[in-house]
């Protein structure tokens, strides 16, 4: 094997695509800053125990591990939200914080065609905030951020894990069976869900409610159907919350960007309330995902209600490329070269252009012909007599 080759699941970003990615990062960083978020960066290396001993442990087989000099096990950051949660619970004194991050997380065994082992995310966490308005604000901001990246054709799909948990609690299943039902419902696989529930001797009405979950998606009209299906207080209060969030988002003008799916349940532990995902045409997997995770920081020693989301920047880049909406590269505005002895004049002109906000380039080749192949709006050649426009 060639020693210059990269391992599976990671990639280099080359000029062009990297410029486009940097452009997206800059726009998002500005958006985050202007919207009241403060940037944080968590360490790339952490202890294995930090992620293996918590209630929402990251699966052992998905963490990149290294041994520390004292023999303790380290991991490469396996999750962005967990590490920001840890920071909020252990290092921030204030009860509230709005944090943003640009980070890379690592997944030893990514599953699926649209996943990688090194995942670049940009996200925000609104810590110490509760209520429907907080949910709605976060979803609205997620939509604004996706628009900011230049994505044209996308929707944000919203659900609530409490609805599923409420219906599930009526079934009286063991933890293992409950997780299996979640997997089936999340895959809209009614056949397997029915087999499992009937095999476990679950009551007819509870089975019927679970089997309706895969088809409970669409617009706000599904709320009435969802309420009629169950008497579970948890399930019904979840729908009441979604109605509030929906009303707020509609008033804020986001109706055309949102839809609902009560059957999308990515995990039973991590999220505690509303969950949402950004789906873009031309990309087969979500480009953004988030939700409310009020209990996540408990394991780190502090109860911090929170809601947030993360965008997968490389997936967004792929979607933009397929949609034909990649940010156009910024051309060089002005290029300089000089003859021997005119270096100082050329360098002064070059730094002046840069400080004027022009994208500039200075070539060290001492020849007019050096500028011939350069794409720039203006070209200058500095001689001992002065600047000569080409």
């Amino acid at each position, binding site marked *: 094997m060639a020693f210059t080759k990269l391992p599976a699941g990671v990639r280099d970003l080359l000029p062009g695509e990297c410029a486009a990615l940097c452009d997206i990062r800059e726009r998002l960083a500005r958006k985050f800053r202007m919207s009241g978020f403060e940037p944080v960066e968590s360490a790339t290396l952490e202890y294995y125990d930090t992620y293996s001993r918590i209630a929402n442990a990251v699966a052992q087989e998905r963490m990149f591990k290294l041994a520390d000099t004292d023999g303790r096990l380290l991991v490469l950051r396996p999750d962005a939200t967990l590490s920001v949660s840890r920071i909020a619970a252990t290092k921030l004194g204030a009860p509230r914080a709005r944090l943003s991050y640009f980070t890379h997380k690592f997944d030893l065994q990514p*599953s699926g065609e649209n996943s990688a082992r090194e995942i670049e995310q940009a996200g925000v966490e609104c810590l110490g905030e509760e209520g429907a308005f907080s949910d709605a604000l976060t979803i609205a901001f997620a939509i604004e951020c996706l628009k900011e990246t230049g994505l044209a054709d996308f929707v944000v799909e919203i659900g609530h894990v409490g609805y599923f948990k409420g219906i599930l609690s009526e079934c009286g299943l063991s933890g293992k069976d409950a997780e299996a039902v979640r997997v089936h419902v999340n*895959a809209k696989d009614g056949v397997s869900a029915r087999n499992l529930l009937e095999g476990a001797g679950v009551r007819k009405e509870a089975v019927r409610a679970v089997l309706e979950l895969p088809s409970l998606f669409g617009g706000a009209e599904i709320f009435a159907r969802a309420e009629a299906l169950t008497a579970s207080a948890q399930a019904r209060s979840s729908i009441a919350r979604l109605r509030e969030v929906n009303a707020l988002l509609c008033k804020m003008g986001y109706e055309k960007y949102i839809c609902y799916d009560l059957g999308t349940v990515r995990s039973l532990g991590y999220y505690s309330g509303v969950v949402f995902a950004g*789906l873009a045409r031309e990309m087969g997997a979500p480009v953004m995902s988030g939700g409310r995770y009020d209990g996540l920081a408990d394991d780190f020693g502090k109860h911090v209600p929170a809601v947030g989301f993360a965008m997968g920047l490389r997936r967004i880049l792929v979607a933009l490329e397929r949609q034909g909406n990649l940010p156009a590269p910024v051309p060089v505005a002005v290029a300089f070269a000089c003859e021997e002895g005119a270096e100082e004049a050329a360098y002064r002109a070059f730094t002046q252009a840069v400080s004027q906000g022009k994208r500039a380039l200075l070539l060290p080749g001492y020849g007019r012909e050096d500028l011939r192949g350069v794409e720039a709006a203006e070209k200058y050649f500095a001689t001992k007599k002065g600047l000569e426009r080409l």
Partner: protein
Amino acid sequence: MIYFALSKGRLAEKTAKLLERCGIDVSVLQEETRKLVLETADKQFGFFLVKPADVPVYVESGVADLGVAGKDTLLEEDRDLYELLDLGFGKCKLCLAGYPARRSALTGGHLRVATKYIRTAERIFAERGEEAELIKLNGSVELAPVTGLSDVIFDVVETGATLKANGLTVLEEVITGVSARLVANKVSLKLKSAEILPLVEKMREAIG
């Protein structure tokens, strides 16, 4: 346009018949051709004919919006997809099979299992906490116990004719109710719901 990934062979033929009953012109699927992307005349549908194990790959990636694949393939590939309908055809079971006299091997300390479904077998034996040496084969799995390559096989059984012809029997039905499923990409179902949902309804009615 809705892109459909179909596994070559019997499943594709049966799916074509089902789509025809839903009022879709599937004549492109019946023509003799070497083209890889087949589009209906009205440009409503495009079909990819691929190997069975590749259907979940195309659908998960979003290159295909919909696909038809056996539940055995879906279990083995374990992809992030929606499984929308049980189409009712391609029925079979995933079984452990071998010589009746070797039934005791199933509970022995070290079982050699030949199979095409290596990940499914791994998962099943791991759940049971049993040791098994898995031997990955790509076809004619029944040959393995006959030649002594393995003690048993883990494979789909439809009629059991091949097993019988080689003196083998089903020792345990591990996963029953395997059949063809309509699968969808998770994003496509939401962003192309106006096209996909009516089709799914028609298919549901057609299979009864």
